[in-house]
């Protein structure tokens, strides 16, 4: 069965600094999708970034980028120039081919220090 592991329950970063959140997953599939979602105190889950496994190029969305290492089954999120509004729970998620079912990690709580 597929699993998603986030080994960092909590991280802290100084405002304007860079932080990397880790995520590893386990699958026997070769084609799949990976996501990072952000959940601020307002509770709404917001898509941060997604990566298709068949793409070698790492996805980037403004200050957010990923380091996708397919062989190592690693999918880390880098946040550059951290802002106070980045403080939230961050969830890594996996979706296999031909299915709608997402598997979420346990989340990493990011604190941004002024």
């Amino acid at each position: 069965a597929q699993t998603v592991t986030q080994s960092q329950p909590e991280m802290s970063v100084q405002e304007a600094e860079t932080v990397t959140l880790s995520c590893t997953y386990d699958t026997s599939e070769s084609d799949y999708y990976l996501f990072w979602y952000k959940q601020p105190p307002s509770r709404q889950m917001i898509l941060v970034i997604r990566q298709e496994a068949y793409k070698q190029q790492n996805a980037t969305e403004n200050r957010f980028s990923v380091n996708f290492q397919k062989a190592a089954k690693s999918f880390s999120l880098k946040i550059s120039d951290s802002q106070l509004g980045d403080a939230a729970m961050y969830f890594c998620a996996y979706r296999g081919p031909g299915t709608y079912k997402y598997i979420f990690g346990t989340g990493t709580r990011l604190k941004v220090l002024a």
Partner: protein
Amino acid sequence: SAVISQKPSRDICQRGTSLTIQCQVDSQVTMMFWYRQQPGQSLTLIATANQGSEATYESGFVIDKFPISRPNLTFSTLTVSNMSPEDSSIYLCSVGEGIPSGNTIYFGEGSWLTVV
């Protein structure tokens, strides 16, 4: 992405009662889902809400406890029946665009239920 609205946003419920959560989307969507997020935990898929037919439930979730309706392509309800304190959770409605061939699910704001 679609705008997803949930009601209620938050509620405190008495043990043994039932509560219905509504999810309204501003456009027609093929796939709608209900997730549960227990306190401090990750998200777990409860079921897929199928338009015009019975919902598809995940292992550990049953229709008698979590009846779901989906009368059209923009609206769904989830009822949490005969609530106990263990049902205290955030319940999230989500919609899928391009699934299963494509892409991504998007979430409503969630409904935070506390059972006392």
